[in-house]
């Protein structure tokens, strides 16, 4: 049988338990917008009613409603979205370089051939000859500048990748530290909920940048797998570094805590780093190669025709553009032949010295290149460049579509996780009222017990 005194203990337990409930509810409300926060719940249990117990309530701890499965999906989808976003962003910059809103290479090509058309109609006209040199120079400069922009973009993507690697390392170190702290807390009987929140948020951030998968052990520590290797195991973190291989492609190396280094480049296909690699080492080089081929074929075709022409000075055999030896690097090296700069008389328009100055057969041949397929392709120069830009457009369109898809899958995964672990203010408000009412009731119990004791004592 319980005594009146034990009723005071029941009231006390009730007030303490409901206070804990209010406190946990307050924590949930306070962290409703905290990234990575997992809602908490107070774990209450009834004290058994018996000789040694008053039948009240006890607080057994704080629960953390975490879904490892839902969180794993979020991390996985973030990795995929990170790759898609980084690639789309990089390709947008490439598109801006290749196809600016005005003054594209195809515009310059058209302008160049327009000057040759004019020259074919007025081969002895100095202003027409100067226009050819000016437009040829402008075309060459535009191609060269675009090639330089693409090379600079690759350099920029490399710098960006190194920066991302630094961010990954910083997070790996923090995850390892938190792993240790969680293990210590767990050994002391504390769930370490706050520490787990922070760590799981960091895991997601690593996933964003490199893709990640975490496996938790009994001590609460996670082993983090990424890029085909282990990046964090217990309290030990590896470090990643991004360098360039001899072929100027990104290389991802992982240095294990013991000092061993492994090459994880082949598995670098997720997260921001994966997207940067795809854009930098696959997409942009493809555009560069096509631009080089375009520049090489155009220069060669123009030079071949021009070299057969005679300048007003009676000399033949001159190139209009500096002759590229090979296609690789031809775009960046494209330039007007310095021997012709400022020398309109040296433009070869006539097919024979005896045709000077009004002979125009070579000028006509040069102008005709605008409608003839370049060697190494099936389309004329402007269309050939259009195909380069169009191919890039297809890549960017696909990247944008992939990014949109990944946005949606991330949204779905986050919804799943949020449904399990997120804070609902509606629920918390109900809980707040529930604990408040219970607390009030416990104080009423206390008052009743007090009154009963008072009555009892006055009866003697």
């Amino acid at each position, binding site marked *: 049988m319980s005594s009146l005194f034990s009723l005071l203990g029941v009231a006390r337990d009730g007030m303490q338990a409901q206070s804990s409930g209010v406190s946990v509810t307050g924590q949930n409300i306070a962290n409703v917008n905290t990234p990575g926060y997992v809602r908490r719940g107070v774990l209450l249990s009834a004290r058994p009613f018996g000789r040694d117990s008053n039948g009240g309530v006890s607080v057994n701890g704080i629960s953390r409603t975490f879904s490892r499965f839902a969180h794993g999906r979020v991390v996985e989808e973030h990795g995929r979205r990170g790759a898609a976003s980084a690639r789309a962003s990089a390709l947008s910059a490439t598109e801006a370089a290749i196809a600016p809103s005005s003054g594209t290479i195809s515009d310059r090509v058209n302008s160049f051939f327009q000057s040759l058309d004019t020259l*074919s109609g007025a081969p002895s006209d100095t202003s027409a000859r100067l226009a050819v040199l000016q437009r040829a120079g402008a075309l060459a400069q535009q191609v060269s500048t675009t090639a330089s922009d693409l090379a600079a973009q690759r350099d920029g993507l490399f710098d960006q990748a190194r920066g991302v690697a630094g961010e990954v390392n910083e997070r790996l170190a923090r995850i390892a530290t938190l792993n240790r702290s969680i293990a210590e807390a767990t050994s002391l009987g504390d769930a370490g909920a706050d520490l787990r929140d922070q760590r799981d948020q960091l895991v997601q951030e690593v996933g964003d940048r490199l893709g990640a998968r975490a496996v938790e052990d009994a001590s609460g520590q996670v082993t983090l797998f990424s890029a085909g290797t282990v990046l964090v195991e217990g309290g030990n973190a590896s470090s990643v570094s991004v360098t360039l291989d001899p072929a100027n492609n990104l290389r991802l190396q992982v240095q294990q805590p013991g000092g061993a280094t492994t090459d994880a480049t082949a598995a670098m296909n997720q997260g921001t780093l994966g997207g940067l690699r795809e854009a930098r080492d696959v997409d942009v080089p493809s555009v560069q190669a096509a631009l080089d081929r375009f520049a090489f074929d155009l220069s060669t075709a123009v030079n071949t025709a021009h070299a057969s022409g005679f300048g007003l000075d009676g000399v033949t055999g001159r190139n209009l553009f500096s002759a590229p030896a090979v296609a690789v690097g031809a775009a960046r090296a494209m330039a007007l032949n310095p021997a012709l700069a400022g020398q309109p008389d040296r433009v070869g328009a006539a097919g024979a010295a005896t045709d000077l100055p009004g002979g125009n057969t070579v000028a006509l041949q040069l102008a005709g290149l605008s409608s003839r397929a370049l060697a190494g392709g099936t389309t004329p120069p402007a269309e050939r460049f259009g195909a380069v830009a169009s*191919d890039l457009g297809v890549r*960017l369109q696909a990247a944008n579509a992939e990014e949109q898809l990944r946005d949606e899958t991330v949204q779905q995964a986050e919804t799943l996780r949020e449904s399990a672990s997120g804070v609902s203010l509606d629920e918390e*408000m109900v809980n707040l009222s529930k604990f408040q009412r219970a607390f009030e009731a416990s104080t009423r119990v206390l008052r009743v017990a007090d009154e009963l004791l008072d009555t009892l004592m006055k009866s003697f």
Partner: protein
Amino acid sequence: MRITDKMALDAARVGQSRAVQQFTDASRVASSGLRVNAPSDDPVAWSMKVRHDAQIQRMNNRSHTLNRAGGDLDLAESVLASAGDLLEEARSLAVQAANGSVDAQTRANMAGQITSLRDALLGFANTRGATGYLFGGTATATAPFTAAGVFTGNDTAVPVEVADGVTARSNASGATAFTVAGGRDILADLQAFATALTGNNLGGIQTAIANMEAGHRQLVTAQVNTGIGAERLHSSVDVTAAALISVSSARASETEADATEAFTALSVTRAGYERAIAVTRELLQVSSVRR
């Protein structure tokens, strides 16, 4: 499924973000009038646009060149007509001078007229057009006939493209119009005629009648050929202009936005955007926290 505030607001945020993106895209299309602004908007249409731009540029260039060359041929035709008139006048003088009643003094006076006609014809033969001397072949920078009537030019044709890979002659042939390459050396014939008149050489004068007639026919033939050439160039300009309209139309249909569609899309996306904002506002207002 358990729904949290964050889920509801995230869904609203995503919806609003998409709505504003669609509204921005529709605004860009409506304001620029262009459906394709970058390769990624529509890679195939972009490729077609580049092709059409190149074709339009080529056609514009061709029209310009043909007009310029056609203008020179028109001028050459006109000059040859005037030259023919001169020869006709010289032939009339030759017929008059061949009359036995004309005395030596009159013939000497006629020689002065013939010399003037010859000088005028020399001036015609050395006419300059937009691309240089009209009758010198490719030697366009210097007068093709010297004061003595010697032809220093050539008969090289200057081609001009009238269609892809098809060329036509864009210059008149001074050699066949004025020199023995066309049958008679007209300037030399006029010189010989003047000499015959000065020398009161009746036989030479009678020869001049035939020579003037032959020279006239020669100039008329050259004039007709030049006119045919000019007409061909003008026809090509017309054909090019028609093709230009067709290609420009194709380019517009590939890359330009339909105004009705663009403004309808703008209205629809604006309504969607406003709806998304309204939904977000509702979500923010409905909360048990305020109760």
